[in-house]
């Protein structure tokens, strides 16, 4: 039976609720309210993991989100496992399974530990330097080796089955942090009519004051913890105040927009969680923000300061006073300030052996006097020069320091211990403040960065603002809140606060040693194993900027983001470089403050909710007729309709033949439709299309090409003049939204004088396009009152019609080259229109065809698809569409650009047709086209943009853009593929019915 390190005097745990959990396969017990760290420590488990680079044994060091070492994998294998969880934050629950990371085969015996003995050859920049040459070894040797031994934890192998949510929250005042200053601020804010939200990342309020048992700290003559406990009881009943527990602020953006992650089930046993939300991301917009995020204790930087059992002094205090767990039986405190004396006194009171090593010469505060009075041995003006013990600290060596603190003198003293509590002072948590755009200032007196100027309506209070003593914290919190919230008085104005005051301070970033730096291991970044000598090496090699040194040495780049020792890195750099620390700046703190799960980030936007799906009114019909669908933007478009066991190729060949031989029908509802009204509508179209529109008669349709101002083709489509001042414009499916916003832009900003109104009607109308020699016969059956002949209803014209009493618009236009009609009807009748067309077309073998056949048919005709045959670099001249560019019009969008020297170059890439020498060979779209394969480097002339086997021509056809293509007709070119080279000949790009005889057939 292993030793029990728990005394159950603490009131913060539920002693009636004993919980079992597993760590590395072994069963342990803890209590409800324990973190995994406190529960393990109560069982005497200190060794948690191995460090990243040297695989040195590492133990629990802290009690919060700054923990660099105690990073564990939660859950077994499969979908519920989660890597990189801090044992200091994870609450235990019945059935919890956790395991060490970054150690193989086990945490007790680690093969990678050999790195520790060869560590002189793993200096800063090791990975950059070693794995560079020879380059060819990278894939075969270096990368697999790094992957095997590195990496923190295992990612889940299956999709995350848990539920996550996003929620918006608006409030007058957001208070971040539920320590003493946050509680006072939330109290003042809510008492004065502000809708206030207080968020706290732990499961209870009170910070470190709530377990402060020292008689030196009193508020209104009560122990500070007693006073605070009463305040907490009061604020829980305030009606203006919402308190969110287990909620950590991840990001603080400009304009007081903040993201917080609320953890709802991670502390519950697995059967309590089922089907409940796991985490919720709060998107908070606060009018005012009060940051009360506290401070983190600094470590001290000395030789072998990383052994299991070396912990932050304030954490050791929390473990004993809050969790009732002693971190050792023989404790040594190593400090440069008074706060660690609280830990010593607390341990001493509980009868636990403790002594103190202090780098200062003396301290005259009440706390220190209490420690002396209690008979605690204090080694003044001493520093630790070494620690011993492999899996747990066993002893330390201390030496006296020289007067200036740069050297050690005298003889070594060996002290036996099983815990070393270190304290190097405090670092205000200014991460969120700087994320919001705030600028810091450096305070020389105690070497801290504190908030200076903020860019949004916010204040920082308490120790995150640089106040570390209870009286300052309370006094400044109250006065700052009064200013911030424009109050003349608060209920707290008359508080009486007593506390021990520190008078002597001393700070040494890198403590002196009897050995040269090269022979010691003073760790700065415990997770990434970077030491003070790595920083110095980086500087010798010429790195000066803190951002560069950070990346080169990987200091501060772990999952803890260097919360502990960034300041020491800065300090050592400034000392080495001989510059003032304040002038060096800090590294940038980027969100998230603590890592977020992917689940929280995406919330509900997974699976079918990942993006909006747009379906046409005929969608159900396509689905029930076994259509395969293609995504076009957010639209689902019928791609092809395979019969029985048909392949895509077979289906498309059949559909293409049917459409030309008798009749085909296409769902064209997704085409963008813009209703254009106003007395200047014709003038407007004149300005936005390249061709002339003034003379288009009422009831007539015209194809238009739209350019960008840079002269490149932007969109195309047919526009119909419905009446004198009303046009219906169609756009490409993918371009609809952009075209509308571009047209709005010109109307509102360049041509506000035009009387034109634009309305998107894409979703208002469904469109069935019926084509083929029998299309006329089908329409005749559907619309018996209309005369379908070339005189009364010629190509490129439109008629209003009725289908069983429902209004329709029929346009006789064609994208296939066949005689064809597009019927527009109100969306809700779309499916019925489609079914009526199918019915009427039955005797003509009407064949539904999808987008693939549409593409094939138009390619036979040489009609471009904007976005497939063009890519934003093609002018209408490049596309050999000179005929559509008006020479007479004074101006239209993009006209001037067509006369720029570059757009007038004759050797630009131009649209051509390509025929393969072997008519059965089908080119691959995107394939490169060259003239000569032998001449290196091979010049790329262009690429294939569209390619099909044409069943109507019985040969392969392709469209391509080729440099100087207009002049290359008949030229033999090559299309090199992976396994062969295909011979092609440049041809005309209209392959089928070049005289347009079928339109009127």
């Amino acid at each position, binding site marked *: 039976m292993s030793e029990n390190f728990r005394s159950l005097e603490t009131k913060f745990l539920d002693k009636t609720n004993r919980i079992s959990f597993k760590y590395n396969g072994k069963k342990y017990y803890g209590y409800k309210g324990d973190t995994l760290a406190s529960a393990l420590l109560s069982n005497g488990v200190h060794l948690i993991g191995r460090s990243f680079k040297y695989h040195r044994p590492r133990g629990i060091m802290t009690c919060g989100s700054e923990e660099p070492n105690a990073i564990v994998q939660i859950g077994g294998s499969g979908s519920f496992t989660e890597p990189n969880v801090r044992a200091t934050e994870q609450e235990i629950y019945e059935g919890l399974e956790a395991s060490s990371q970054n150690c193989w085969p086990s945490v007790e015996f680690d093969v990678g530990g050999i790195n520790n003995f060869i560590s002189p050859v793993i200096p800063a920049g090791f990975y950059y330097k070693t794995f560079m040459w020879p380059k060819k070894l990278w894939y075969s040797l270096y990368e697999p080796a790094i992957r095997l031994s590195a990496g923190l934890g295992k990612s889940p192998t299956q999709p995350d089955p848990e539920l996550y949510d996003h929620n918006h929250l608006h409030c007058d005042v957001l208070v971040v942090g539920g320590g003493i200053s946050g509680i006072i601020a939330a109290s003042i804010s809510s008492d004065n009519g502000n809708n206030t939200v207080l968020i706290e990342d732990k499961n209870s309020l009170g910070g470190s004051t709530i377990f402060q048992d020292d008689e030196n700290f009193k508020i209104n003559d009560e122990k500070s913890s007693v006073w605070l406990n009463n305040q907490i009881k009061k604020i829980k009943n305030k009606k203006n105040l919402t308190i969110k527990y287990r909620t950590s602020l991840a990001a603080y953006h*400009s304009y007081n*927009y903040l993201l917080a992650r609320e953890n709802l089930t991670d502390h519950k046993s697995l059967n309590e969680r089922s089907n409940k939300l796991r985490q919720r991301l709060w998107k908070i917009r606060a009018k005012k923000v009060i940051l009360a995020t506290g401070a983190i204790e600094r470590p001290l930087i000395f030789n072998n300061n990383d052994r299991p059992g070396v912990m932050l002094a304030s954490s050791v205090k929390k473990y004993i006073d809050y969790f009732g767990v002693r971190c050792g039986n023989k404790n040594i405190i190593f400090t440069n300030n008074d706060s660690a004396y609280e830990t010593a006194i607390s341990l001493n009171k509980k009868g636990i052996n403790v002594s103190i090593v202090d780098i200062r010469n003396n301290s005259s505060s009440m706390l220190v006097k209490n420690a002396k009075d209690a008979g605690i041995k204090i080694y003044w003006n001493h520093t630790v020069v070494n620690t011993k013990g492999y899996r747990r600290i066993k002893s330390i060596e201390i030496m006296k320091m020289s007067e200036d603190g740069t050297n050690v003198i005298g003889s070594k003293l060996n002290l036996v211990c099983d815990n070393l509590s270190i304290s190097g002072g405090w670092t205000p948590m200014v991460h969120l403040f700087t994320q919001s755009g705030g600028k810091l200032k450096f305070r020389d007196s105690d070497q801290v960065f504190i908030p200076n100027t903020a860019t949004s309506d916010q204040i920082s209070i308490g120790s995150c603002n640089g106040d570390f003593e209870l009286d300052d914290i309370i006094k400044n919190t109250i006065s700052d809140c009064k200013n911030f919230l424009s109050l003349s008085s608060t209920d707290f104005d008359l508080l009486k606060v007593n506390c021990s005051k520190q008078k002597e301070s001393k700070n040494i970033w890198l403590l002196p040693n009897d050995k040269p730096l090269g022979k010691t291991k003073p760790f700065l970044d415990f997770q990434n194993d970077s030491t003070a000598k790595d920083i110095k090496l980086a500087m010798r090699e010429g790195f000066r900027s803190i951002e560069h040194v950070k990346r080169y040495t990987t200091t501060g780049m772990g999952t803890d983001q260097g919360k502990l020792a960034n300041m020491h890195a800065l300090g050592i750099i400034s000392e080495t470089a001989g510059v003032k620390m304040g002038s060096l700046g800090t590294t940038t703190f980027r969100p998230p403050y603590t890592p977020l799960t992917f689940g929280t980030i995406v919330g509900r936007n997974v699976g079918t909710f990942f993006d909006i799906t747009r379906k046409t009114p005929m969608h159900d019909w396509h689905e029930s007729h076994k259509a395969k669908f293609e995504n076009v933007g957010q639209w689902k478009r019928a791609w092809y309709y395979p019969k029985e066991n048909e392949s895509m190729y077979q289906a498309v060949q059949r559909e293409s033949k049917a459409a030309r031989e008798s009749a085909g029908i296409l769902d064209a509802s997704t085409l963008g439709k813009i209703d254009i009204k106003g007395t200047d509508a014709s003038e407007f179209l004149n300005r936005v299309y390249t061709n002339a529109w003034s003379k288009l008669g009422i009831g007539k349709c015209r194809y238009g090409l739209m350019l960008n*101002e840079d002269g490149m083709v932007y969109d195309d489509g047919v526009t119909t003049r419905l009446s004198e001042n009303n046009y219906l414009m169609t756009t490409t499916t993918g371009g609809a939204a952009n075209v509308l*916003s571009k047209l709005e*832009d010109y109307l*509102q900003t*360049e041509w506000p004088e035009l009387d034109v109104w634009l309305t998107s009607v894409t979703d208002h109308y469904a469109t069935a396009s019926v084509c083929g020699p029998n299309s006329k016969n089908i329409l005749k059956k559907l619309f018996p009152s209309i005369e379908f002949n070339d005189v009364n209803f010629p190509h490129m014209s439109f008629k209003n019609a009725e289908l069983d009493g429902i209004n329709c618009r029929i346009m006789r236009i064609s994208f296939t080259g066949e005689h064809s009609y597009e019927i527009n009807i109100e969306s809700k009748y779309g499916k019925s229109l489609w079914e009526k067309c199918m019915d009427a077309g039955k005797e003509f073998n009407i064949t539904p065809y999808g987008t693939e056949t549409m593409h094939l048919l138009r390619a036979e005709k040489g009609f471009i698809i904007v976005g497939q045959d063009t890519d934003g670099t093609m002018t209408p001249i490049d596309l050999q569409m000179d005929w559509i560019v008006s020479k007479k019009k004074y*101006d239209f969008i993009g006209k*001037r650009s067509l006369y*720029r020297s570059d757009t007038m170059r004759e050797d630009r890439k131009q649209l051509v047709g390509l025929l393969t020498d072997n008519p059965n060979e089908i080119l691959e779209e995107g394939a490169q086209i060259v003239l000569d394969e032998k001449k290196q480097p091979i010049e790329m002339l262009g690429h294939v943009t569209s390619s099909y086997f044409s069943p109507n021509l019985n040969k392969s056809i392709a469209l391509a853009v080729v440099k100087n293509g207009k002049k290359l007709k008949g030229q033999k070119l090559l299309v090199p593929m992976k396994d062969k080279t295909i011979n092609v000949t440049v041809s005309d790009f209209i392959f089928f019915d070049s005289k347009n005889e079928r339109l009127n057939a």
Partner: protein
Amino acid sequence: MFIITCPFCGERDQSEFSAGGEAHIVRPKQPTELSDDEWADFLFMRKNIKGVQFERWNHAHGCRKWFNVIRDTSNDKIHAVYKMGEKPPVK
């Protein structure tokens, strides 16, 4: 993420808007009279200031109106919002 006060709708989240680049670049009335350089200047050249910049914004997921914004690009502070065609309220 900032808040923009649409002159037609009021305060709205930035996610409702789309940015339209530098403001007060007027499309030349007679493009054909311009040299290649002059046209290129209108077409391509933008100041991209770090600091106070005049910009066009569109309330894309709202009233669809374009308007002008004076914004400090270094801290996203918006100094003024005004309608198209109006004079900037500050110099």
